[in-house]
């Protein structure tokens, strides 16, 4: 049971009757689902809430926290959403759920990774929005649909968030109710995803740049340890690290980290 799975009449969600696209930004955030008619309602309140969310995200430095806030905002603002997560697809295969609202959201990501199919993967890879009326009757992803429906997930709405090289991200919203997501849900989610894409992508890029600098220092320090231990040159020390990495089938960075923290080189 997902302890955070809320009902449709979440007080904040109930107050948000979204309207026409604010700023007209939906086209850039993937194609609408085949079910979408484009019909939406009044959106002044939604625009205000999205602006608040964007400001909130700007003040959040950590990528993981940015993603938690994006998901929370989506579950709060998108009509029909009862839970959600952001799927980070690393190197086009490993799926990591970020900011899940509960166990059911984590399970949905796990099932997609295990079966290699699902609406979030389609959204992430195909640059489109995928809306699922009821997984119990869904034929596009038979292996996933059966297991997800058994777990109690029926409605789903998935949108591509960003593409960075071989890394992709998708916003996943789920519901225990069949037919929970309609055109209005999709329009709100698309608007929200546009704001979220900027924040998430930026936070991940910053993290990547910082991590690259920190990793360089870590590898340099490991080289120094080996230079002193074996009286070798920096290049020879790097070669030793590379050999240990190859022999143990581990990343060079992991070998360096272990060496600098425990003094061990290899198993």
């Amino acid at each position: 049971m997902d302890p955070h799975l809320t009902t449709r009449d979440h007080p904040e969600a109930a107050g948000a009757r979204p309207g026409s696209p604010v700023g007209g930004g939906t086209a850039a955030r993937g194609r609408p689902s085949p079910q979408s008619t484009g019909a939406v309602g009044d959106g002044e309140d939604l625009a205000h809430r999205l602006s608040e969310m964007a400001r909130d995200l700007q003040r959040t430095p950590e990528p993981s926290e940015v993603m938690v806030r994006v998901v929370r905002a989506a579950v709060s603002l998108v009509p029909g959403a009862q839970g959600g997560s952001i799927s980070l697809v690393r190197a086009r295969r490993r799926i990591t759920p970020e900011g899940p609202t509960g166990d059911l959201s984590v399970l949905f990501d796990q099932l997609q990774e295990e079966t290699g199919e699902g609406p979030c993967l389609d959204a992430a890879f195909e640059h489109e929005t995928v809306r699922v009326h009821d997984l119990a009757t869904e034929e596009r992803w038979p292996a996933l649909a059966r297991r997800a429906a058994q777990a109690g997930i029926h409605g789903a709405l998935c949108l591509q968030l960003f593409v960075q090289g071989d890394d992709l991200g998708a916003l996943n919203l789920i519901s225990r109710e069949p037919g929970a997501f309609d055109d209005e849900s999709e329009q709100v989610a698309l608007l929200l995803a546009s704001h979220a894409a900027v924040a998430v992508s930026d936070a991940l890029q910053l993290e990547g740049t910082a991590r690259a600098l920190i990793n360089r220092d870590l590898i340099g320090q490991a080289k120094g340890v080996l230079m002193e231990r074996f009286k070798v040159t920096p290049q020879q020390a790097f070669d030793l690290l590379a050999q240990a990495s190859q022999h143990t089938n581990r990343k060079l960075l992991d070998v360096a980290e272990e060496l600098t923290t425990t003094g061990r080189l290899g198993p």
Partner: protein
Amino acid sequence: MARARPQRLEEEGVWVIPDDDRHHPPRSADELEDPWPPCAEMLLARRVARDVVADRVAVVLAAGPEHGAVVRGSDPVLVVLGDMAETVGQGPAHDVLATGRPSAVEDLHAGAWRWPLLVGTFAVPEQLRSLLLLPLRGQGGRDDGHDVFGVLVLARDRPLLFTPAQVTTALRGSALLSAMVMARTLASGDGAAAGEDLDSLLDPRTDLVPQAVGVLAQRHGLTGDDAHRQLQATAFAAGRTTQHCAQLLLEQMR
């Protein structure tokens, strides 16, 4: 400013600056001439420097106060100033990294009182007078400084403030430079690969301090953090930069 000697490291017998180096001046800018061809980022930085009539330019990347690196091709005199600031933990670029705001210094020598530890420890290079420092940052438009990952440093050899138009030009350049640097590390989620992407960007001397830290850690059973602090303390007490001491330590091993 009077400073206590001998240094902690020497007291504990961890590492001693060789006698024949004690009376040598800190590494001169001439020793830092970079034999490598400049990267695209440095070509852009130099173009910005030319457009705003700056005599010198350097680009510094940083991940917090403990992880910094100079981009290959940065001006040697500015690199020396950066080494000095890194050793004492304060300086014009530190202010920009901490606040996320651009900074202008009309005359470094007249305004150096803002960094008492820096000027109390080192003789700031004579050539450097007016400075303009701009943060390199993410594209998300945060206003809290948390997205700053580097600094573009422009300097003049005479005390002459940069005009508003020149500042605007430099800001545009720093935004483009930010995007270029970030593009190097976004292609891979693998941190090691991202680090390798920086190899062609960063000055190879960036590795000297981490290597020296590793040597000290191994030699004396210290943690990396403790070894780094010890190296800094030794450098500070001797009036040398951490970079200079790291280089000495590694040269002793040859």
